[in-house]
């Protein structure tokens, strides 16, 4: 259609188009100055040596055993909290939507999911220390009651810390992260579960399918992209987290974020440019995760649109 327009009109059109973008200039200027340039500086820094020349040598940071350990630990924590939080959150969302949990339970859980998914940082670590720390509320409670020990004998008191539990460890960190992870799953997956149409269930029932068959052949295949997408969201949510781990373990668990923090404070790698490469690696993993989430999300929205 543009082809048939007179040239004069096209140039005013173009001027109008440029003018349309002008209103967005303050936003772009702010973002460029305080977000794009700082990020860009970090990324270019990853490919420069000390004298400022281009190099790929900084990638050698990924052969540093401490860095490898940090990445593996971060991936492990993120994977565990995404899998556990995802599964738990899914069952909870199922229960309060089509599972038949009481209505009051639904409103309590949905409200608290919205709150808990936003709760994190230092206070979350404090809450878990006060609850499951060595002298915490639940630890004290467990110590005062009798529970069967690993060989089946009665143990009074039962101190979880005598049986390998330690809040200030990777397992404890996973427990703390789950506090915001599973509610996020509940919030993300609920619309998808609500999008399952009643007719599908009725059709499956009228064809003689069992509940198990309905879930295996109809509901789960429909929900799979949503579940995977939500799990990716949880993964990235935990991968970038710093404050809870720092406050809970004082930096004892070697997460990538903790490692980057140490690098900012004291250049533990002995080469600032390797620090930039370390950070860039994180952003690449985050970008892949979020992009995959976006793709899956788009796929899901086809089903959800009723």
């Amino acid at each position, binding site marked *: 259609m543009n082809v048939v327009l007179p040239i004069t009109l096209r140039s005013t059109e173009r001027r109008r188009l440029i003018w*349309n*973008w002008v*209103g*967005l200039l303050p*936003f772009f200027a*702010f973002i460029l100055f*305080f*977000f794009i340039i*700082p990020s860009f*500086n*970090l990324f270019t820094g990853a490919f420069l040596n000390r004298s400022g020349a281009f190099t790929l040598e900084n990638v050698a940071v990924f052969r540093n055993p401490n860095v490898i350990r940090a990445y593996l630990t971060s991936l492990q924590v993120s994977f565990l909290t995404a899998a556990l939080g995802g599964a*738990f959150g899914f069952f909870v969302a*199922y*229960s*309060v939507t089509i*599972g*038949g949990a*009481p209505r009051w*339970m639904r409103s*309590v*859980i949905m409200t608290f999911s*919205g*709150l808990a998914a*936003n*709760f*994190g*940082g*230092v*206070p*979350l*670590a*404090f*809450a*878990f*220390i*006060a*609850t*499951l720390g060595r002298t*915490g509320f*639940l630890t004290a409670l467990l110590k005062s009651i009798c529970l069967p020990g690993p060989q089946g004998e009665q143990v009074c008191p039962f101190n979880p810390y005598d049986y390998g539990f330690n809040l200030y460890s990777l397992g404890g960190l996973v427990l703390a992260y*789950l*506090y915001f992870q*599973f509610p996020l799953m509940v919030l993300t997956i609920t619309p998808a579960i609500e999008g399952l149409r009643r007719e599908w269930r009725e059709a499956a029932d009228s064809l003689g399918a069992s*509940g198990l068959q309905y879930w295996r052949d109809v509901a789960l295949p429909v929900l799979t992209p949503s579940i995977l997408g939500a799990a990716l969201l949880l993964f*990235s949510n935990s991968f*970038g987290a*710093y*404050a809870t781990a*720092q*406050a809970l373990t004082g930096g004892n668990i070697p997460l990538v*974020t903790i490692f*980057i923090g140490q690098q*900012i404070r004291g250049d533990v790698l002995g080469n600032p440019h390797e*620090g*930039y490469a370390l*950070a860039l690696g*994180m*952003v690449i993993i*985050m*970008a892949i995760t979020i992009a995959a989430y976006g793709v899956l999300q788009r796929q899901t929205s086809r089903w959800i649109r009723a």
Partner: protein
Amino acid sequence: MNVPPRKRNGWAIFWGVLAMLYFFVPLYGTLDFSLRMKRGELSLMAYEIVLSDPRFWESFRYSAVMAVITIAVSALIFVPTVYWMHLRAPQARPLVELIAILPFIIPTIVYVFGLIRTFSRPPLQLTLTPLTTDVLIVAGYVVVSMPYMFRAVDIGMRTIDVRTLTEAAQSLGSNWFRVLADVIFPNLRLALLSGALICFATVMGELILASFLVRPALGPYMQLLGLTKAYEPAALAIISYALTWLSLGLIQFFSRSAASQQLTGR
């Protein structure tokens, strides 16, 4: 239906109860712990100590002031931007939306690394004085809370008829500034309120920016307290819970009554 409804209901209740336990046990545990500073009795001693610590109030005040500035700057940046995007440049939406979620992709710890690297050396050394560092930290807070603020403003803008309001105001002789200040801003007050509250909660609980830019905010204060004290952190966690949840609870409350309070609607 082959599966008896009662059995499914039982599982639903099991998972629901488990979820509620996960929500409430740490909350209750923290509350209980925070009240046990005096041996053998329940007392508010931990709270009294926290609330009578001048450093608590200093860091609280600092964070609150930064939060208010952040909210103002965010509103001044995002309302005109989203307004313009709705009215004149819908083709910019994919790009602006992408930028608005970038803080999710670039973790805060990486972002602060970039900020320090960029602004702690010439030509633009902002980390030299407290005042310029505060400029930097506000910019950082605006970026970190951008996904929420952008979303809040965008959703708010969708519920009002931007074009009609603008044309009506212009036909009555308003210029762009008057349109924004007297028509768009007042109509967006509920969306802005929810964006502001989430901004407030984010800034009050933020640790990374304040800690690495070495400013006396609430996050670093809490972290320091956690290293040296036992009961006071629990009391602080309860205070922080209350503060965050008050903010988020207000959002839920206001957004529920939002529909009836919009001045115009489609």
